[in-house]
């Protein structure tokens, strides 16, 4: 037993910095997906079960766009940067489109009827099931690997650990998008109405906030972030019709960990989960890593369902 721990702690000590960097990169991706859960939860008080497929749509869309643009060329320098931008934009656009469609088809008719919460969950599960199986049929049940967009060499080293280009790309793209989102929600008129609806939908509607439009906007923003995150995720993990399931479950864990309904909490939860998961590689066999992430979810839900920062989308961010 002691041997087990000393040897595993050795791995942890030697590999700490590379694992941390990798964990932070996947943390950014979880954070971006987690925001989709948190925003929708804020306005509807419901978990959007179809968010995993919004993610998946972003992955496929950006893959096909990038593949068409690259062809057989070997991009470098400015081309790579433009391609990354293109991937983020096309993934985000597809994610946003599918999110709005899901709201339109699976949520809005139920909202009109004031259906009980169980009905929303079931209809969202139906949407998720429909979408990923449709993707499986249309694109084949096959893992597509991205063509090379940039050369993934170490850019610089921290504490002896080489930080690869991929991590830098994810971190930069993630930080830009998260800061933009935070500003939009905190400052713009759109963001104000989102916060108003999150706090008290009835009063907000009396004050002249268009609830339907605000809900569409939250799906749109969450979908765009999720779709863009799927591009960043797909660069290394590839694209397949079932790709949404595991990252989305983890992102949901991150959202709960940070306090569902709380945007900054989602970011914190995402980064934390990414790092914890990455470091647990030192202790847990590969096939059980998902079990570790999931155990975190169950423990958080049982012992601190309001998360680290608590629910506060409605309150001043």
């Amino acid at each position, binding site marked *: 037993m002691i041997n087990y721990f000393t040897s595993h702690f050795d791995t942890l000590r030697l590999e700490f910095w590379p694992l941390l960097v990798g964990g932070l990169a996947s943390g950014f991706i979880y954070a971006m997906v987690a925001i989709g859960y948190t925003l929708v939860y804020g306005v509807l008080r419901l978990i959007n079960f179809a968010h995993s497929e919004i993610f998946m749509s972003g992955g496929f869309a950006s893959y096909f766009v990038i593949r068409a643009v690259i062809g057989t060329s070997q991009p470098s320098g400015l081309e790579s940067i433009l391609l990354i931008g293109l991937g983020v934009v096309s993934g985000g656009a597809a994610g946003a489109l599918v999110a709005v469609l899901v709201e339109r088809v699976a949520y809005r008719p139920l909202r009109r009827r004031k259906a009980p919460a169980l009905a929303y969950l079931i209809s969202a599960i139906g949407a998720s099931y429909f979408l990923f199986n*449709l993707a499986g049929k249309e694109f084949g049940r096959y893992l597509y690997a991205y063509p090379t967009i940039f050369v993934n060499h170490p850019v610089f080293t921290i504490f002896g650990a080489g930080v690869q280009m991929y991590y830098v790309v994810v971190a930069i793209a993630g930080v830009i998008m998260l800061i933009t989102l935070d500003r939009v929600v905190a400052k713009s008129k759109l963001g104000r109405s989102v916060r108003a609806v999150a706090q008290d939908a009835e009063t907000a509607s009396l004050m002249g906030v268009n609830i339907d439009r605000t809900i569409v906007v939250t799906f749109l923003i969450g979908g765009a972030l999720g779709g863009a995150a799927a591009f960043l995720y797909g660069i290394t993990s590839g694209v397949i019709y079932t790709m949404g399931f595991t990252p989305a479950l983890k992102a949901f864990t991150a959202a709960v960990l940070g306090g569902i309904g709380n945007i900054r909490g989602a970011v914190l939860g995402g980064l934390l989960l990414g790092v914890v998961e990455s470091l647990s590689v030192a202790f847990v066999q590969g096939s059980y890593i998902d079990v570790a992430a999931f155990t975190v979810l169950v423990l958080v839900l049982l012992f601190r369902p309001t998360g680290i920062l608590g629910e506060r989308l409605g309150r001043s961010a």
Partner: protein
Amino acid sequence: MSRWWRRPSVVRLASSVSVMAAVELVTGPPGSNAAPMAGVSGSFAEKVSFFGLFASPRWSVFLVYALVLYGVWSLWLHRGRQIRNAASVVLARPRNIAQRGTIRWSAAVVLVVVAALLPHFVSDPFWQTAMVEQIAVYVLLALGLNVVVGFAGLLDLGFVAFYAVGAYATAWVTGALPLPPLFGVHLNPFFAIPIAIALAMLAGVLLGTPTLRLRGDYLAIVTLGFGEIIFLFANNLNGITGGSAGTGQIPHFSIHLASIKYVWGLAPVPYYYLTLAFVVLFVIAFSLLEHSRIGRAWTAIREDEVAAESLGINPLKFKVMAFAIGAASAGFAGVVTAAQTNFVNPSVFTLYFSINILVLVIFGGMGSISGAVLGAIVIQTVSMYLIHTPPAGYQPQDLYIYLGALLIVMMIFRPSGLLPSKRRRREIGLAEAGEGHMDEVLTGDTP
């Protein structure tokens, strides 16, 4: 508001076209790795025969369908009320008759007799096997999940776990697992029935006790995750479960009583009767349960947990009980499957499976026993038919697309299902009229 694209007729037309475009995609040819866009483009461009008159691309045919849909929809908006009223006048008498207790029971008896005679009319071995493995077993599973989702109102997305426990327990006590059976005794699957049911119920209690404190939507995610964990364990614990290859050599059921010797063989019909007997047992037990104290307590908790608790009902206890009781029939279904097919393999125990069972219950009617049975029979028969005689371009996995769409359609148009339970129908009606607290219980807004 007066912008042209917001006018109801325009929205209706656009919706009709979108719905048909979706149908076009779903029913169109599949894509492949070599040509990932072939599915999408083929769905619209492929030429089909237009009512046997001339060949025309799919998009034009579906455009005609969309216009028909638009027409029917518009007609329904203008005349729907009259049609519905006329229908309810016509149906009022049969409906009243159908609700009489004696009629319901005699209908059930007739159904059982029909079910018992069915194997004599079905000679196709495909259908004989399907009747056991795909229909009777699924009826059992739908009955169990109906207790959890329908009676207690708990959305369990990991229901497959209990089925897996039943199947692996059978493999274990009959000595087919790498894990040696208790006391080294290899038992006949008949003895596996009580053990598997008990273990499945125990699994229900173990999974339920921590998770059933959670609100409805969190519970759904946690059960989904537990289902996946069970799969991961079954798939990876080679020394216990046999890993991803699973395990074979599970013996058939057999009776050795003095001079009576009977072994259930490879032929499915004997299994059909065995399962049918248990279906009848479970139906009787669950309907007695529905109208017992426990059933009333479930309804109370489902409708208003706070009020129920103020009356001294311990919500957690009754929820765990629902999990355990639902698990019992799933555990038994696991025994039948394991014994009939002689092997257990983790690839069955996935999220797909849990969702499929959920569709059966939702389609039939949450909380309605007859609904669960009918839902399972109808959906499983259709899906088996699609496998037996597939339409052009149909792949078995396409079924899930239709099931997903069915869930959405049911929630939009008939949330209480095909054969709704009386209580459930009232509840949904009340929630929509702004009465009742069902919503509050599920989203748990209490601080």
